[in-house]
């Protein structure tokens, strides 16, 4: 099972009492606001869940794995996610006998 925007919207309908339209819009807005903050260079800290941070990576040498040709990987800004202690604990305690790979 994969959790998607559709299931999140269903939950907002059931648990918050938003109408279907509002629930769908709210889910879109939730991820949109996080994206806007990150786009603007602002990190996002959701206590109890985790932090989205930005990292500026310098240019580094790369290689086309097919041709072996050397091409530089350009400098870029990337998003990294760091799970909170609470989230880490919640997933660590999985049943490893069944869940491993």
């Amino acid at each position, binding site marked *: 099972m994969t959790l998607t*925007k559709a299931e999140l919207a269903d939950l907002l309908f059931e648990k*918050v009492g938003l109408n279907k339209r509002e629930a769908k819009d709210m889910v879109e807005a939730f991820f949109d606001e996080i994206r806007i903050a990150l786009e603007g260079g602002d990190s996002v800290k959701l206590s*109890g869940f985790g932090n989205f941070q930005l990292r500026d990576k310098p240019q580094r040498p790369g290689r086309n794995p097919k041709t072996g040709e050397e091409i530089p990987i350009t400098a870029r800004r990337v998003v990294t996610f760091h799970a909170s202690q609470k989230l880490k604990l919640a997933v660590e305690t999985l049943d490893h006998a069944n869940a491993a790979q």
Partner: protein
Amino acid sequence: MTKSELIARLAARFPQLVAKDADLAVKVVLDAMTAALSRNDRIEIRGFGSFALNYRPPRVGRNPKSGEKVNVPAKHVPHFKAGKELRERVDLNGEA
């Protein structure tokens, strides 16, 4: 941006809702995401990214202070992969 700022921005976007609804909505979404990951379910948000668990096999670690060997049990750790749209919009050098 913190969680309370996110709630405030969402409340401002939905003036027809009471402020408490934005607060509850954020809680419901984050709880559902935590619950999904703790069932080892993936989360896939188009345009934003995906969350999944990475498996870390058991290993023998060392207490850096005493040098003593300790068994570190297998565990899962959450992992986020930014989606194409987020990646491009965040990258300063990305095409607009």
